[in-house]
């Protein structure tokens, strides 16, 4: 058998018997509202990049500027982000922002608004970029740049990490080597955080999900905003039921350029109203969940 580079796969996990955890306040579900803020750090001719993101329009012309697509991203930075911040304030929810460092650099007022409102800012790359496009040394440099930049623009260093598309085989080791990260979310593999061995120590993973993400508006799995609303309420209702004996983690994934549009925000607030009506939710930043897990396990 050949040697596989990178971490070993784990298809067993908790083996059908996840630890019975007690979330703060005895909550049945830990709900992590997670906002991915990348607008302005995506590949764009308007950024001076040689190629733009491949969108649905003219995918064969990525070396040419697409001002329409650029402004659709800009909507997230100019309108969607602020609308989501208003909603989080209305519902008194502290969220996690997975931020690409350059997106924050390009919107300093937004960057400064996050931590004072109680939100966590975790790192989502230096730019909105796939770590597998870099050599190991380049990737280490990008991680260091992201940490330095986010510390500068938001006033504190990020303690969480999430990769665009997929981590590389080096990412987790590099995060541990860089130091200062409490967790990463480069996994979709479970409903609960888990420890994984890295370089002789243990490293915490707080998994996330694509199932409860507004990105399904982009791939058209969601049509009407109520599709998103029903997805969120169904997820919560099931986890609430399981949470009577086995409390779990729910992640709501939002992207300002997608989920920041008003109809989709209405769907989000309808779902949040439903969660409030049912009760039993602990709205938590991912760093809170990580620290809670560290204390419990």
């Amino acid at each position, binding site marked *: 058998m050949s040697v596989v580079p990178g971490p070993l796969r784990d298809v067993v996990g908790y083996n059908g018997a996840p630890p019975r955890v007690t979330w703060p306040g005895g909550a049945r579900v830990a709900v992590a509202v997670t906002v991915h803020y990348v*607008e*302005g750090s995506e590949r*764009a*001719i*308007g*950024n*001076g*990049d*040689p190629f733009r993101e491949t969108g649905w*329009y*003219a995918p064969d*012309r990525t070396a*040419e*500027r*697409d*001002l*329409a*697509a*650029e*402004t*659709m991203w*800009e*909507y997230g*930075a*100019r*309108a969607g*982000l*602020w*609308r989501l*911040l*208003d909603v989080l*304030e*209305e519902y008194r929810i502290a969220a996690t922002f997975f931020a690409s460092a*350059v*997106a924050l*650099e*390009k*919107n*300093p*007022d*937004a960057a*400064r*608004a996050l931590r*004072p409102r109680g939100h966590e800012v975790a790192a989502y790359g*230096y*730019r909105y970029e796939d770590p597998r496009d870099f050599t190991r040394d380049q990737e280490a440099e990008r991680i260091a*740049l992201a940490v330095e930049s986010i510390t500068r623009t938001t006033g504190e260093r990020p303690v969480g990490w999430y990769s665009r598309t997929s981590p590389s085989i080096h990412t987790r080791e590099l995060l541990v080597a860089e130091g200062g990260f409490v967790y990463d979310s480069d996994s979709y593999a479970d409903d609960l955080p888990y420890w994984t061995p890295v370089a002789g120590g243990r490293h915490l993973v707080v998994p996330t999900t694509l199932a409860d993400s507004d990105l399904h508006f982009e791939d*058209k799995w*969601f*049509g*009407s*905003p*109520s599709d998103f609303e029903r997805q969120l309420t169904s997820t919560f209702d099931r986890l609430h039921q399981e949470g009577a004996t086995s409390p779990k983690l729910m992640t709501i994934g939002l992207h300002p350029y997608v989920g920041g*549009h*008003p*109809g*989709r*925000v*209405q*769907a989000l607030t309808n779902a949040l109203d439903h969660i409030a009506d049912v009760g039993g939710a602990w709205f938590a930043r991912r760093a809170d969940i990580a620290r809670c897990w560290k204390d419990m396990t």
Partner: protein
Amino acid sequence: MTERTEPTERTEPTEHAEPTGRPVPGPPRDLTGYHGDPPAVVWPGGARIAIAIVVNYEEGSELSVGDGDATTDCGVTDLGWIPQDGRRNLALESLFEYGSRAGFWRLVDIFDEHDVKCTFYACAVALERNPDAAAIMRPKGHDVMSHGYRWEDHQLMDRDHERERIRLAVESIERTTGARPLGWYCRYGPGVNTRELVVEEGGFRYDSDDYGDDLPFWTRVNGTKHLVIPYSLVNNDGLFGAAGPGEDFYEHLRYTFDRLYTEGATHPKLMNIGLHLRLVGTPGRAKALSDFIAYAKSFPDVWFARRIDIANHWIEHHP
């Protein structure tokens, strides 16, 4: 709505830490806009929301082998995005024709029934080929702006060619509708020269070649102030292509309205509704549109606005 607590002082971004040094053709990006602190807009009558219904009138101006073009356009029809070869596709041609023959008149009736006025994004050649439709637009109180000479991609044009196409569009729409267009919107997206050429032409009050905000905004073009009224491909019947029956579109519009109406208690905004004759002009979907208009009209303080009304309001109150 919560009041924001930050100071209104605004910080413009400095050059980010990774300048690529590559020259950027066309206008600079704007990722900050109103910095989270948009103007408190007072729409006419104190409305909480301005609803701009846009009807794209393109049918007959799209590329078509039946008109002597090398291929037939496949944009925004019930067939979905299936690029065509050089053979005539009579089915696809007739899908477009449905828009100008049946869909147009149905939508005009619906606007009459509800007494609302819309803005036609008109491709000049499409109006030339349906003179009766062109002739009734303005008398019925609707607004007509330019959506190009044909339904064509401005990103592919060189500057001189594009200048000529803009001129042709203005001249033609003035002839077929009785007045020149005062607004401009490209198919999908502008080229890097479009906005400069629209300003250079001299007779436009605004363009809608932007999807970046919920309110109009001013930008500068070679030192001249220029008004942009952003548009939306989210509140757009183009979604029908993949996302369910007409009722879903009704729900989509209702959710958008509900959120913006809530925000409008303190910060009134613009709601765009983008429509295509060949899609929303079919009866089941037209019902969804009609139901939404009735829903919105059941609320007080709703302003159904043509884009020129919004432009004039902005020029007067937010110069």
